[in-house]
């Protein structure tokens, strides 16, 4: 009886090991199953999901106009002090002073892509961009100004 157990032990052990080898062997002879993505080579075909959060961007239209009123809702919503909004006072044709965005400072190096600023924005002035290739040689290069030079607020955005 002992010998029978001993032999069946060996048989089952060998069988289980061969089953495992069959699985790896299967993949060895089926190169089609390879899932490697050759990243820098596939940049042309690489499409990020449209909701992917890579960085905060401020879309500008053809007239170099954005929708940011400088209300600082995003600045307040940000948990990491990533956003700093510097406002200025524009003078409207009627002669009234109006608060407007001067510079939208964005610290990419502090950003955790939590999307809270985008959620907080009442005018949809900012959104999440899909660019993920952020590496630079100097940390200061991660400090960005989101509003383009000379841009102004779009008509009708309050």
């Amino acid at each position, binding site marked *: 009886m002992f010998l029978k157990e001993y032999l069946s032990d060996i048989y089952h052990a060998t069988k*289980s090991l061969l*089953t*495992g080898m069959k699985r*790896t062997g299967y993949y060895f002879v089926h190169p089609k199953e390879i899932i490697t993505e050759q990243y820098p080579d596939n940049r042309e075909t690489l499409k990020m*999901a449209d*909701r992917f*959060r890579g960085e905060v961007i401020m879309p500008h239209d053809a007239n170099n106009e954005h929708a940011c009123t400088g209300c600082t809702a995003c600045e307040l919503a940000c*948990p990491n002090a990533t956003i700093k909004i510097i406002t200025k006072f524009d003078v409207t044709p009627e002669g009234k002073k109006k608060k407007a965005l001067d510079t939208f400072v964005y610290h990419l190096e502090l950003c955790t892509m939590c*999307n809270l600023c985008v*959620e907080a924005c009442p005018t949809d002035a900012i959104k999440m961009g899909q660019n993920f290739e952020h590496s630079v040689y100097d940390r200061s290069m991660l400090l960005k100004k989101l509003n383009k030079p000379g841009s102004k607020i779009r008509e009708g955005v309050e």
Partner: protein
Amino acid sequence: MYSQTEILKEPEINSSNSAEGELVINIGPQHPATHGVLHLVVTLNGETVKKVEPHLGYIHRSIEKMCESLSYRQFIYVTSRMDYLSAHVNNHACAMTVEKAMQIEVPTRAQYIRVIMDELTRIASHELWWGALAMDLGAFTPFFYAFRERETINDIMEQTCGARLTMNYMVPGGVMADIHPSFQQKVKDFIKLFKSNIDEYDELVTGSVIFQSRMKGVGCLSKEDAISYGCTGPVARGSGVHCDIRKIYPYEIYKQVEFNEIIETAGDSFSRYLVRIKEMKESIKIIEQLIDNIPEGDYQAKTKAVLKLPKGEFYTRVETARGELGVYIVSEGGTTPYRIKFRSPGFSNLSALDHMVRGSKIGDLMATMGTLDLVIPDIDR
């Protein structure tokens, strides 16, 4: 904070009690098997483990203190950084605590989405654990097979939540955005892929005689000890403790879903392994029940811009992939929590490690640690 010399100072090891013939080795903070920066001071007698003493804190960010200065909308994203493999579930627990305190009714659609996301996260987490466990035992190949499936989940997450690991998708009152139009199809594709591939796991690892001999009878934890050490999740369920929060204190729509709480009674590493493998299948069952029945409606309840919790104490428990996560908020009525405590599952599970591995071999220490499924940021917080 520290001067250069202090950092360079030799780490102090409890050399006072190392008797003749005992060897004290530092496993970690940089070690292939500790999955992060866990530092174990192991006292050995030859190959036999005499004592294991975890030293924590290498990745302590004091999230609890940080949260005290963050608003109730902001603090959720930080919790993704605790147990990063169950980021969704952590966010979920926090959102639920806020909802409970403010009595916000979450729309049914949001509840469905949340539960599906939770279960996907659970599968992804268990996949990673499976691969990492096999790697701890010296088999590299399973890791890649596990990641193949996990990648599909990450793609689904990326498409709907916008991020792959730290999603911050749950907000008080629901979820941040509606599901992506192709979400349901992608999840169904994943289920199909997963069902065809889960057998490979058994072929490659579960059935293997080497794996079984490494796992069976190793790192035993009795039911009483599991409860006393506060173990939860698959660790406790492997010892026969009924502790699935989804079953005993159902939240969201878990009450309406049919699934089994997986219980194994042996209490060794292999039963913990089986619990997790079976749990993945149960999670698939839950997703299958929900994915086609997501009701129409809002994905987010209307909430005020600034959330203020009433004065009081609020505690929520959820089941993460590693066990019971508790969020304990003490509010003074302001916009930020007065004190917040995260009862992390890994912390309690780790405390049982010493008890489990005393007297076994170094290889068993690795196997047991692998089945505890430790995520160090979750332990350190």
